[in-house]
């Protein structure tokens, strides 16, 4: 029946992660460092308020934009934490995870003939969403020796006259790289000079381990050119609730809201009440989770350096992205052989784009015991090859 599929759907490639997922699923006793979600359960106060909203019978649709209380609270938090003012009435949209916000943004902004600049390596959804919106994708390579930061020199090479949208995603999945205010300044100048729009996915912003997170929209002149996208999944361990948001100028947000109203109607009300509680009372629980990630991060970097692999220090998210080329293997070979021999699952860097070659992504959203065991097995594996 494939002939009935649209050419777009037919040609949409399966995620590189999916292939590896299928392989791991067939094996037993695997320690997986392949998971891109927190190992914590949502803080109890947040779960409890979701339950309470159900007990009160709050089971109906909300407004398309989301509960105004939640938008008010978000507006306050974004202003307080990142210094950007968004009007809760028409500049914030509550979405079904940050993923929906990315899809809506691409559909609202892109059409045939447009091109999107995506840093490489990057989270797996941006390019397919751009393709579904009819746009072309141009990758902007980032480099390990530069801490995987985005540089104007690379942007200039990837830029074409059709480029319309630049995707930013820092702290970065899969590399753990962050961009500081100073790193962003030349990018902002480039964006203004070339009249680009920016989709900044800042879902990992709370997981920043040195200094404070810089929101791209807070840079001079960038607020109205930027769609600020984030969510609750990583900060508050709420992946399964599917709740996120987009903030930006009225024209962008209203266009996204129109698409959202026809395709999604609204984000789940239970998740919206839980998210509201997260913002109001789960700050301490989040800080504890962040402190725990930070300890594990040090453990992982130390572990890889000890086994003789180059591993730049990731300052955000919950991934390390060590260079495994010293083993003489490429990313896929390394991941497959490691899985077969030592039963440790990691994700080949190439699943996130061609610049991921020579690297593997290891999540440290696992207990210290699991991480230590995984490091021990990997050390044995690497030792036999260096």
């Amino acid at each position, binding site marked *: 029946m494939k002939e009935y599929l649209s050419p777009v759907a037919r040609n949409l490639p399966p*995620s590189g*992660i999916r292939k*590896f*997922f299928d392989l*791991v*699923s067939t094996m037993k006793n*695997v320690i*997986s460092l*392949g*998971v*891109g*979600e927190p*190992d914590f*359960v949502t803080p109890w106060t947040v779960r409890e308020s979701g339950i309470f909203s159900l007990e009160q019978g709050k089971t109906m649709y909300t407004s398309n934009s989301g509960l105004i209380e939640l938008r008010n609270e978000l507006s306050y938090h974004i202003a307080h934490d990142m210094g950007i003012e968004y009007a809760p009435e028409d500049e914030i949209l509550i979405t079904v995870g940050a993923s929906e916000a990315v899809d809506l943004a691409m559909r609202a902004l892109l059409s045939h003939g447009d091109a999107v600049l995506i840093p490489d390596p990057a*989270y*797996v*959804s941006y390019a397919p969403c751009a393709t579904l919106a009819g746009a072309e994708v141009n990758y902007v390579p980032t480099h390990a020796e530069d801490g995987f930061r985005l540089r104007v020199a690379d942007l200039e090479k990837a830029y074409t006259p059709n480029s319309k949208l630049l995707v930013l995603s820092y702290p970065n*999945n899969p590399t753990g790289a962050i961009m500081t205010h100073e790193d962003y300044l030349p990018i902002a100048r480039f964006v203004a000079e070339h009249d680009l729009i920016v989709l900044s996915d800042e879902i990992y912003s709370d997981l920043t381990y040195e200094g404070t997170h810089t929101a791209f929209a807070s840079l001079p002149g960038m607020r109205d050119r930027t769609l600020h996208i984030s969510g609750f999944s990583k900060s508050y361990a709420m992946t399964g609730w599917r709740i996120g948001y987009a903030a930006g100028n009225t024209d962008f947000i209203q266009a996204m809201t129109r698409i959202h109203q026809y395709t999604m109607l609204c984000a789940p009300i239970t998740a919206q009440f839980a998210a509201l509680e997260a913002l109001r009372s789960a700050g301490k629980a989040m800080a504890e989770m962040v*402190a725990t990630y930070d*300890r*594990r991060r*040090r*453990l992982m970097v*130390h572990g890889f350096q000890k086994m003789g692999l180059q591993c730049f220090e990731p300052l955000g998210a919950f991934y390390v992205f060590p260079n495994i080329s010293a083993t003489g293997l490429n990313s896929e070979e390394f991941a497959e052989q490691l899985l077969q021999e030592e039963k440790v*699952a990691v*994700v080949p860097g190439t699943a996130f784009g061609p610049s991921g070659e020579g690297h593997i992504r290891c999540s440290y959203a696992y207990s*210290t015991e699991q991480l230590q065991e995984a490091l021990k097995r990997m050390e044995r594996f690497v030792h036999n090859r260096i």
Partner: protein
Amino acid sequence: MFSNEDRNLLELISQDSRQTPEQLAIQTGLSIGYIENRIQQWVEDRIIIYRPLVNWERTGDQYVSALIEVRVIPQRGFGFDRIAKRLQKFPEIKAVYLMSGGFDLTLMIEGKTMQEVALFVAEKLAPLEHIQSTATHFVLRRYKQDGVELMGEEEALARLVVSP
């Protein structure tokens, strides 16, 4: 005042006291020497007291525990301290707290059987001088102690093995 570094270190030890100074150093960025000094000091100051939390109910042995409310006649010049110090000597008594409210001391008592605990209260505790009355509440089940959920969390739905 505790520094943030020290609080972080202590938090890490309280989660798993079996970690070596080297493991702690890797995770905190502090030096091994500093950590060893700190731990030694904290042990001396009784900020850290190493004892495993034993979940006796799980051993299958006979085990009961009870919370006892005690009313005490305070002694002139000593208040409640003298009687409390005397009570804490009994090995059966695992905890002694001075309380605000309708009674004075709370004791936590452990024994093999209810009868053993009842006998201890009747023969050793209640007849003590200055003790006015006792009320014994047996613990039927312990769900959480010292921040640890003893029954274990409900089986969490497994995460996907690989996800983006």
